């Protein structure tokens, strides 16, 4: 148990890890654990208060709020996870190249482009670009993607500078380490050293940052869906459920806004706790940054 706690950097980290596992399991198992179909409309049971049949009540179309919260979590995790995957792939690749092959034009070029990308206010660009592209589904090579794919790709691209800068700082330091010189003397090629020796040594701060970005991603997805530019109704997401709930602020249907919002907060707390814990455990020098977006 103590080892487990140490792995996640203390009690808070462990609680975060457990919560994150529960949330992920909940998202993956949505089709089996949701008590109702999240899209099933039942006008006879519209706006039912929380009770034994509907633990979280029902919304204006009689859809079960609990089931929609569960499925909404799936959408939220999908967007934030895939965005982080895109951001990590791009950021680590660029940061590693710039840091490992430092002192040349490649470093200068990559870092200047990344600096310019960091001059982009994330949320506004996400809102505006999804707005410009339009919120409909789109088709590439015969596969139709929902609107959320636009959002997550954009977020992923906008995450790149943060992650690249962390990887860069680490790769720069590592590239001057003795073991890199030793590997060179063994006749190992630069690319190979970069990928099989330097990269693993630079992953810790990236993992920490990625966890914190997951938390931000959940809030951004919810916010963008809230203004109608993220996950499109009737598909449930925490953000668009809250957008619907806005119409019932004055009539007392509190469960419509309380449960999806609590779900967002709980998930964000979970990822933040895990991220903070991992930072204490993996990144004692705190290269990963406190985040704002």
């Amino acid at each position, binding site marked *: 148990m103590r080892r487990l706690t140490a792995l996640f950097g203390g009690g808070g980290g462990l609680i975060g890890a457990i919560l994150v596992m529960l949330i992920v399991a909940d998202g993956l198992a949505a089709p089996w654990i949701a008590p109702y179909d999240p899209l099933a409309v039942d006008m006879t049971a519209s706006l039912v208060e929380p009770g034994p049949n509907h633990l979280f009540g029902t919304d204006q179309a009689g859809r079960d709020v609990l089931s929609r919260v569960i499925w909404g979590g799936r959408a939220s995790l999908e967007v934030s996870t895939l965005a982080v995957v895109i951001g990590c792939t791009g950021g680590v690749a660029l940061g590693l190249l710039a840091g490992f092959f430092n002192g040349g034009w490649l470093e200068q070029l990559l870092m200047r482009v990344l600096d310019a990308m960091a001059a*982009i206010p994330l949320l*506004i660009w996400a809102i505006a670009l999804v707005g410009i592209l*339009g919120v409909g589904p789109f088709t590439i090579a015969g596969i139709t993607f929902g609107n959320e794919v636009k959002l997550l790709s954009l977020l992923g691209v906008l995450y790149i500078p943060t992650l690249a800068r962390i990887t860069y700082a680490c790769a720069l330091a590592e590239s001057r380490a003795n073991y890199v010189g030793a590997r060179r003397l063994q006749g190992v090629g630069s690319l190979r050293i970069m990928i099989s020796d330097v990269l693993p040594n630079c992953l810790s701060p990236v993992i920490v940052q990625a966890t914190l970005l997951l*938390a931000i991603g959940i809030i951004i997805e919810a916010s963008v869906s809230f203004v109608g530019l993220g996950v499109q109704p009737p598909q449930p997401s925490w953000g668009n459920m809250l957008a619907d709930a*806005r119409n019932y602020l004055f009539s007392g249907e509190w469960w419509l806004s309380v449960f999806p*919002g609590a779900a967002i907060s709980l998930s964000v707390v979970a990822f933040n706790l895990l991220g903070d814990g991992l930072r204490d455990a993996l990144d004692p020098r705190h290269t990963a940054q*406190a985040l*704002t977006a």
Partner: protein
Amino acid sequence: MLGLLLRRAGFSLLSLVLVTSCLFVLTRAIPDSPGRIVLGTDVTQLQLTQFEHDHGLDRPVVVQYGDWVRGLILHGNLGTSFITGRPVGPDIAATLPVTLELVVVAFVFSCALSVLAGTLSALLRDTVLDYGVRLIAVLGVSVPGFWLALVLIMALAVDRDWFPPGGVEPWSAGVSEHLDSIVLPTFCLAIFYMAVLSRMTRSSMLEVLGQDYMRTARATGIAPWRVLIYALRNALVPVVTVAGMSFGYMFGWALIIESVFNISGLSRALLTAIQQRDFVLVQGVVMVFTFIFILANLVADLTNAWLNPRIAAVRA
């Protein structure tokens, strides 16, 4: 200092050019021609070509961008909307003050309170106050502002009558009415950054307080408040950097908060523009925000150079 200023300003300008040209290309790259949006879906190809020719859309993007930059610098023109046919600048200028007020008030409050709370929390480490500040910091970054807004509207504006549930009363409606109406939106906007900044202040302050030069300063018998000033000058550097970024980011969240409170600020302009597919206006709004964002980062850099002259020496 001047060298640093010029260098940073030059770099900010370069970022601005790169980022705006990127946005410009993106708004021009949409598959839907603006002509089809303005004239309807059943236009003939001839009308479409005519429209694009009239508005200069058939020229290369680089030429269009150059034109746009020239218009901006010479006439302060952010572009002319295809939908309304008017320059978008005045439309943005008309809605910006409301948003700006919310953001500035929220920013000032979150900076002042978080520096205070973070410093006290670091000085009184492991006391009830410290735990309280840390708890609020974790909650503040986790509770999305727009949800907090919904809950607060239900609790304080609908159930009780403490604050108006939405909208911003103009100053002309009375000072207290105006202030009442901006309390909830600014609070919801500020809480996230208050949490982030107080956490940063706390950890940065703890790090500085543990340094040898702090012990030396105390040992020389300088008054405690002066030691604290020295500590703050060093500890605030990372906080100022993040605060500078936060100011720009706040405009993004202000959009969401405004939409919850039905405030007719820039968010309404932007969301309406998106609905009408008025890309020139969208582009204009985003340009203004990006400009503010870059400017705020520049100001943060210079503030840091003033707080800690070593930074100016190293970077110049």
